[in-house]
């Protein structure tokens, strides 16, 4: 079912963070993604261990080559570049969401791990707190 680029990561099952933020909305068309990442950044700044799971159209947030909008409105690409600075290094993406959109991990601007459905189930249930945007 999985090829090289969407191989499940062996180390994802037991990880428990303080907060998992699930991002389901695409960038640009609304501010869901941006305001969701804001919560992740602030939680990290408050010393919480935070991870991000991209599902559905949320995987488009990671597509390489994005820019600002035509009226200079910021996309999420600049914001995502701040993740590492805030020690948010756990990025997961839904493997099925990638497949449905014709994307592979090679299309993404940041390193992420692709998870199949059962792994997403395990990941979500290992977290004490989860917010969805």
């Amino acid at each position, binding site marked *: 079912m999985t090829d090289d680029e969407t191989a499940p990561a062996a180390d994802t099952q037991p990880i428990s963070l303080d907060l998992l933020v699930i991002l389901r909305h695409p960038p640009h068309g609304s501010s869901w993604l941006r305001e969701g990442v804001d919560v992740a950044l602030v939680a990290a700044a408050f010393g919480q261990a935070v991870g991000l799971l991209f599902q*559905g159209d949320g995987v488009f947030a990671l597509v390489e080559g994005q820019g600002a909008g035509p009226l200079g409105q910021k996309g999420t690409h600049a914001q995502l570049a701040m993740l590492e600075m805030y020690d948010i290094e756990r990025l997961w993406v839904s493997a099925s969401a990638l497949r449905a959109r014709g994307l592979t991990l090679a299309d993404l601007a940041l390193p992420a791990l692709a998870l199949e459905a059962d792994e*997403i*189930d395990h990941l979500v249930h290992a977290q004490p707190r*989860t917010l969805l945007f």
Partner: protein
Amino acid sequence: MMLHLLNRSPQFDGIYWDLSEAFGAEDHLLLIEDACYAALPAAAASLAAFGGRVSVLSEDAASRGLLDRLSDGVTVVDMAGFVALTATFPRSLSWF
């Protein structure tokens, strides 16, 4: 053990899919607002992934005229029951 809250109609099937990826064997799904329409028999396919562990909020189903039309497998809970579900399940996650 997790309570999932869902408020969108089955027309938004992408949400139902994403929810199904995160839905665990001991989880429960509560349909509120426009998700009540998923409790119609014609929408049974949209709930197939949730193994009968599905409730619908009575007052939202009632205002939509759905109380007499619900699928057999879906439990009806009132607002007090909604609160009780959030108390019983240690965590909840809202899908929209």
